[in-house]
């Protein structure tokens, strides 16, 4: 593990860019979305309840959604959108049936912009008029639109080195046999050249991924053509088989998930005991997404500014190079630590992740949590056999309802962790929970606070609800039940608002968009008679007949002496204040003749601050009067 002196001194809270919360941006991703626009993509089947839902629509909306995610999360990645089997052509190579979609002020393969997202959102409306659909592979002609498309995509991805960028072509199509319409030697020839083209691309470090669209009544047969194109081998093949969902919506979910490229945070070893060490990859599946960092601009030119940090000696004012030592005052002395010493202190464990033992799941309490968890998945890339051991332990832990306790020895933040096994959960919309271990960061004794004890009842008897009250609460709970609640069903209203505003500003729009806050309670549902009745019964069982009076009493009862006095003063001030004609006094400059006590009547009555000298008070009154 490498040591970064900056990391050691870094405080996580102050630093949103901390490695833990940010994925490494070591490599950027370049993606070409290659969308089949043949008439087949536009056909609708009678099975669909909604006629709008064509495969083309599914593909396009997946891309639109992923563009929006991308501009928030990984805006450095570059994308190109390219249709094939089109009537019009637009590409540098001037090949038929291929149309590269783009907007102004942007290269064909470039970072997504606000304009791109906006225009792509209405692509379906303008598509027929501007681009048009037309099958590019016909028996009569020698045109090969798939070949052309791959060529164009490959040319787009020519920029940047394969070492620093991850290059991918994502192919959306519902045609499992693109050369089905041609026969004989032409077909053989076309297949051969297309496969060669794909292989060339792959040799250049470009991976081609297929996102097949299928219908329940006609399965997408990968083996007809695409197995060869993708260079799939035995085991990988099964992962590619599209599960034909009953609903297009589910398929959309599946595609959307598959469009993400998994990014591992790091590779670690997990030592079990006596030299058995597995290879694992860690993934950050859950991390708070925050509005991007602020860039300071020159307010006149709107050009970004360069920030420069300098260290000054507080005693002499001398400029200092990056200081090598830190200190802590202790016993009236400055105890100095070198960077090496501090990292040595933090190096309490030798391995990456060391198993310490197992415990039943009941030992893991709800308050044993500090940070978002990290996901662990085995890899046989370097140590063959890791997966096998991992699967065995994973199964045992699930079956025996136990979790592992381990020590995670990162160089900056070594911590005790719980490894909780999660079984795979698959629904119609694809994999919902991947199988693997979730690493949960545990608190230490000094991180846990015993709040309950502070409020322990002095007289030994804390009030407890009786059976009837609990029964009423149970009834209430049955009424307000969120049956299909899923953890991430809400989008973050603050973030949505943030980016909606940015998008509007970036496009110079005048109107600020309204963003729906999905997190507000369901008022309508709460107003249903059943719910209201259950609520009333529960309320009655706890608070008795007079909840409202009770509330009044509670607020009064809780008011401290000081606030009672404050209230009395305010009431008095309102009365006194009415005795003066303030506007008149102000107009005639008579305010200064009043005492500060009198002036404060006005201020208190109007809830203005009463601090400051007499002139300040008068000024404040004048401002308030609008004089």
């Amino acid at each position, binding site marked *: 593990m490498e040591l970064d002196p900056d990391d050691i001194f870094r405080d996580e809270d102050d630093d949103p860019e901390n490695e833990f919360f940010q994925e490494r941006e070591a490599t950027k991703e370049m993606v070409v979305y290659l969308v089949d626009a043949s008439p087949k993509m536009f056909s609708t089947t009678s099975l669909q309840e909604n006629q709008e839902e064509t495969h083309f629509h599914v593909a396009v909306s997946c891309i639109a959604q992923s563009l929006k995610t991308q501009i928030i999360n990984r805006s450095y990645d570059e994308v190109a959108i390219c249709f094939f089997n089109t009537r019009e052509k637009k590409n540098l190579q001037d090949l038929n049936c291929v149309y590269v979609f783009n907007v102004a002020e942007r290269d064909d393969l470039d970072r997504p912009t606000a304009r791109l997202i906006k225009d792509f959102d209405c692509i379906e409306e303008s598509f027929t008029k501007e681009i048009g659909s037309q099958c590019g592979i016909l028996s009569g002609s020698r045109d090969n639109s798939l070949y052309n498309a791959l060529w164009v995509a490959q040319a787009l991805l020519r920029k940047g080195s394969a070492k620093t960028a991850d290059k991918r072509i994502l192919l959306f199509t519902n045609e499992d046999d693109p050369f089905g319409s041609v026969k004989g030697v032409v077909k053989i020839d076309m297949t051969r050249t297309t496969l060669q083209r794909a292989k060339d691309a792959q040799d250049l470090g470009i991976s081609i991924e297929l996102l097949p669209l299928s219908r329940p009544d006609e399965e997408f047969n990968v083996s007809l053509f695409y197995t060869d194109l993708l260079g799939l081998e035995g085991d990988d093949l099964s992962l590619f088989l599209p599960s034909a969902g009953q609903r297009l919506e589910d398929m959309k979910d599946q595609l959307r998930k598959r469009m993400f490229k998994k990014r591992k945070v790091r590779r670690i070893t997990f030592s079990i005991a006596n030299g058995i060490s597995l290879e694992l990859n860690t993934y950050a599946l859950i991390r708070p997404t925050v509005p991007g960092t602020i860039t300071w601009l020159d307010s006149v030119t709107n050009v970004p500014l360069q920030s420069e*940090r300098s260290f000054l000696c507080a*005693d002499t004012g001398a400029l200092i190079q990056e200081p090598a030592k830190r200190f802590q005052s202790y016993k009236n002395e400055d105890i100095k630590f070198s960077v090496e010493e501090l990292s040595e202190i933090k190096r309490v464990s030798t391995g990456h992740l060391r198993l310490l033992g197992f415990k039943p799941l009941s*030992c893991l309490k709800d308050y044993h949590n500090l940070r978002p*968890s990290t996901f662990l998945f085995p890899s046989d890339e370097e140590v063959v056999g890791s997966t096998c051991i991992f699967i065995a332990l994973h199964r045992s832990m699930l079956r025996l309802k136990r979790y592992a306790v381990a020590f995670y020895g990162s160089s900056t933040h070594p911590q005790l962790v719980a490894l909780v096994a999660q079984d795979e959960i698959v629904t119609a919309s694809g994999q919902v929970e991947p199988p693997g271990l979730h690493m949960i960061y545990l608190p230490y004794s000094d991180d846990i606070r015993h709040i309950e004890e502070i409020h322990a009842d002095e007289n030994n008897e804390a009030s407890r609800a009786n059976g009837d009250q609990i029964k009423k609460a149970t009834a*209430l709970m*049955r009424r307000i039940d969120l049956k299909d609640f899923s953890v991430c069903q809400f989008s973050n209203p603050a973030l949505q608002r943030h980016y909606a505003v940015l998008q509007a500003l970036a496009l110079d729009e005048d109107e600020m968009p309204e963003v729906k806050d999905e997190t507000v309670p369901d008022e309508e549902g709460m107003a249903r008679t059943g719910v209201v009745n259950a609520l009333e019964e529960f309320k009655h069982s706890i608070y008795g007949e007079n909840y409202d009076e009770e509330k009044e009493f509670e607020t009064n009862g809780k008011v401290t002496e000081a606030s009672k006095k404050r209230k009395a003063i305010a009431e008095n001030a309102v009365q006194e204040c009415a005795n003066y004609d303030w506007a008149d006094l102000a107009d005639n400059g008579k305010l200064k003749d009043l005492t500060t006590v009198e002036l404060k009547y006005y201020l208190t009555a109007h809830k203005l601050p009463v601090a400051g000298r007499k002139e300040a008070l008068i000024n404040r009154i004048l401002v308030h009067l609008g004089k």
Partner: protein
Amino acid sequence: MARNKEALVLLLDVSPSMHNILQEVEKVCSMLIQKKLIYSKYDEVGLVLFGTEDTNNELTTEVGGYEHVNVLRHIKVVDKDVVEVLQQLPRGTVAGDFLDAIVVGMDMLIKKFGPTNKGKKRLCLVTKALCPVKAPYEGTEEDQVNTIAAQMFAHGIKMDCIVPRGKQNVDGNVRVIEENDHLLGVFSKKSSSKVVYVESPTSLLGALRTRRISPVTIYRGDLEISSALKIKVWVYKKTAEEKFPTLKKYSDKAPATDKFATHEIKVDYEYKSIEDPSKIVPPDQRIKGYRYGPQVVPISSAEWDAVKFKPEKSVKLLGFTDTSNIMRHYYMKDVSIFIADPGNKKAILAVSALARAMKEMKKVAILRCVWRQGQGNVVVGVLSPNVSDKENTPDSFYFNVLPFAEDVREFQFPSFSNFPVSRQPNEEQQEAADNLVKMFDLAPSGREEALQPEFTPNPVLERFYRHLELKSKHRDAPVPPLDDTLKKITQPDPELLSECKSVVDEFRRLFELKENPKLKKSSKRLLREKPSGSDEGEGSVNANDVGAAKYIENASAEKIDKIGDSTPVQDFEAMMSRRDSPEWVNKAIKDMKNKIFDMVENSCEGDTYQKALECLVSLRKGCILEQEPKQFNDFLRHLYKFCQEKDLNDFCELLASKGVTLITKTEAIDSEVTDDEARSFTVKNEPKHEEER
């Protein structure tokens, strides 16, 4: 700060029964004092030992009795001397009476502060409570404890008792221990006292809160079940990480003669225009910009305030849902606790009713929270019941923050069932894993749960403060090594490991780990700790080496087209699994045969036999998989014959002992060899070796 200061009297049992853990007591108490020296310099501390030979306390001179209670230090503001004293506690010689010590400590606090400083006076008692307490002059021990507890309560004195032993299975007088435990129990019932029992030295280090933090609420107000029903609650942090201290940067620029030098460093940020780096842009000419794709959108704070999301302060219920709907790994942050407004009886009842109903029905509540007015975002989280098992603590809720849709990355992973059989554990392996998970147990019944977060100290902070203390004496003191007590947090407990040695060994025997041969040669070399001189034996790296191996990112598989000398087995497997041409299988088998032949033939005193055996096993497996039994069987017969001719019988012996024989009809349908024939193949050869020997 001063009004928040605490007065603490440490009551430490140093009687012989305590000697084996006094080292840990010394450590945890010095840590407590060290943190006070840094974070609460005005706190006052007294120190009382009991079980000592000597007697030294005011009560014994005033009223007599209270023998063997030794006041080492009166209540004074903390200083470095306390740390010194605590690090070398005298070992006592007689049994200690903890009740006497409590009375002495209480007397010290009362004499010094009287009824003032309520709630800021604390006793901290560390004792095994193994020795009987003296009978009082009148009444029972319990009466006496009741009187003391009432006094403590009246003066607002709190007490923490740490009993470093188990509740059961302790050596000593069972009756005395039960009686003492009962008395301590009375304290925790009748006064603001807390008694914790810890078994291991590691948990003793974690049992005492070494840093005093006065908790503050993050929210006080309504928990809105609906607009018609609001419950008054207070919300606190339940967990909050104690961070590694932020050290200041040190400047050595000040002259050594300057006694008042702060040695601090100020960090200064300057913003310069990119075109003209000499031009510094003052703050009022700067404007904040937010990134949106490649664009940076300028927006002033005022503008931003006008358009940004501004929720109202409130905590609202969205609904209840099944506990199973919320998986544990979705918890995002440190945890909060919801407690009913302590002054509001009805609220306590309401929280209690909801918590108990939730627990009974296995439900949790989903809330939307805005803790403060002006907070720029909302928090959605899950409220889970915390039903109290102690009579005097109210029921409450824990609150965990949940992720928003934007916070979740829906990466797709392969199903475990989709992995090839070679990567799936077989029944025997699964059983070994089951046993490991069962037996490598940190929470055995009847014993203390090891590494409970509540009692586990932070080894990094322990180490930092110990180093700090060492450095204050010798500025060049090296970083102290982790002692055995702390090692139990970062490494598996050797005792526990030896207890389940057989299970671990079995696990190790059944699972095989080896380095992946498909790695590029260049990166593979780096996998070794030390570069190997020859290619010999490189094929079989044992699992130990792998554990120590350093990994290289992005090492990718390479297409193998011939079987090399270094890793023949892996090369063979790689070739066999190539799918780009059917010819690879034949070529692989052929090459492998040659390789094995070479190895056997060129072996010098059997040095390559092990490797040849591995290759042969691999070849056998490959031929079964590829339905080429004949190729293997012919080869094996040929090899046997060859060995006999060349007097290399020990190789055949090795094969026989490992049960490597012909491929049978049951293994591969194309084979013509029956099970019996295969068995007799080796048997037939075996006696031959015996004869020849």
